[in-house]
């Protein structure tokens, strides 16, 4: 087992922190968006740089991917990818509380991504006594081919990353999207340090 792998206790602890953060985030989002937001139990796994494009979307056809970097104290940093399916974008403006002609579909997707990412990560950060800053969200790609092309064309400077995938469901708007947090190997050690400290305090 590589030193980058989380052991069972660490994995459980991270899962628990994420569960609590998801609960609070979905509550905040529900109040802001005025509809129920379900967050499905996350999957946590290690991915290699080579397998990233495969693991991102094996079967589904993502049409849009928005990336946003996050960084906090103690070297906790990573990148959040929000992935959308074709049918999901129809009623976004409505969901966000904008008039459809006030903003383009791209802007709606980016706006929602930023809200979902920062709301979740803010709560997550407060769970581990941290505080996050964010880079501006960017639309990486807006079609299936360009998504995988984009990922495949990157010369990554990391070999392994910790991948946390959370699915958001807004049933009133029959809307789904996946949030994928990728934490590069240099930051995994830092996450483990934080988790170990929390485990000790129990």
């Amino acid at each position, binding site marked *: 087992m590589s030193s980058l792998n989380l052991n069972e206790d660490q994995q459980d602890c991270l899962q628990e922190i994420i569960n609590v953060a998801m609960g609070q985030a979905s509550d*905040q*989002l529900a*109040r*802001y968006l005025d509809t129920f937001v379900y967050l499905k139990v996350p999957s946590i796994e290690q991915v290699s740089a080579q397998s990233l494009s495969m693991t991102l979307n094996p079967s589904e056809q993502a049409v849009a991917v928005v990336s946003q970097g996050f960084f906090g104290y103690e070297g906790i940093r990573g990148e959040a990818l929000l992935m959308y399916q074709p049918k999901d974008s129809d009623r976004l403006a409505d969901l*966000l*509380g*904008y*008039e459809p002609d*006030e*903003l*383009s579909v*791209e*802007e709606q997707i*980016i*706006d929602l991504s*930023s*809200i979902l990412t*920062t*709301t979740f990560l*803010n709560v997550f950060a407060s769970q581990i006594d941290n505080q996050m800053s*964010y880079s*501006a*969200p*960017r*639309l990486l790609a807006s079609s299936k081919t360009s998504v995988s092309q984009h990922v495949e064309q990157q010369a990554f400077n990391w070999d392994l990353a910790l991948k946390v995938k959370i699915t958001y469901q807004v049933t009133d708007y029959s809307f789904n999207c996946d949030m994928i947090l990728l934490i590069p190997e240099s930051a995994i050690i830092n996450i483990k340090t934080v988790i170990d400290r929390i485990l000790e305090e129990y």
Partner: protein
Amino acid sequence: MAVIDFCATISDKLNTGVLVVDLNFEIVEWNRFLQVHANKAPKEVIGQSIFAIFPELPQKWFARKLSSVVQLRTQNFCSWEQRHHLFELPHTRQITTDSHFMAQNCTFLPIESDEGQVTHICILIEDATDVCHYQTKLGKTLEELALANRIDGLTQIFNRKHWEECLDKEFSRARRYDHELALIMFDLDHFKLINDNYGHQCGDLVLIKISELVQSLLRHCDLFGRYGGEEFAIILPETDLVGAKDVAMRIRQAIDETVIKFHNENIRISASVGVTTIDAKDKRYEDMINNADVALYRAKDAGRNMVCTANELEECFS
């Protein structure tokens, strides 16, 4: 010695607009960047509604955007890529760029009281005019490159690579929906003699003029390309053998009748034409090219300046 207020000093030296509003959209902070670019002193704007100072702001959108910052206590963004600018400010490259207002990246930050309540919103306004300008230029260049990649430099019709990609697509489509598809290939007769007798400039002129002539005889949906040297190819979607033969005969006749002036010479040329339509036996689009090519060489063998079909009848027409 007076204590320096670093934050205020730096805020006034930043090349970024720093604007703070309270929850009633009243301006409470206004740094030098804004003073200079909006040409308004702090005393003119402090206490005023942001909508009075910037009437161009989309009011409902802006209010909703800020409400996400207040309610979710999180930052929000607005990029020039989706919204060129929020605030109508002039930029610093007015001579060398063509945009009217400063392209902006805006960040909305919640400012919380000690009790954790958001009391103000800080708006950072970054000048993205340079990025916007170069990105736009890059986009235009990529478009030009993509076009150049499809076009034959001499004749300005599709080059072989792009033409074959089109045939590949049309072939799959016709197969999938069981539609008609026809292919015409033609070759200019004794073209080498024109190069030998009048020089390559004359040969080039003939290729250009014949391409223009044939293009003018085609429908908008037909795809015309230069297959190689003096060989040309036309994809005719939704066209049966009768229709394709009709087009082929008109092309043969038009080329035969045309006279190209080169210096004081009247140049005449003819073409041999092969026609085929999609057949159940064709497995790949290359099979259609092959069939049209066979018909074309039959037209050559039959004495040139003729149209031959590759289908069962294998007729020739002059």
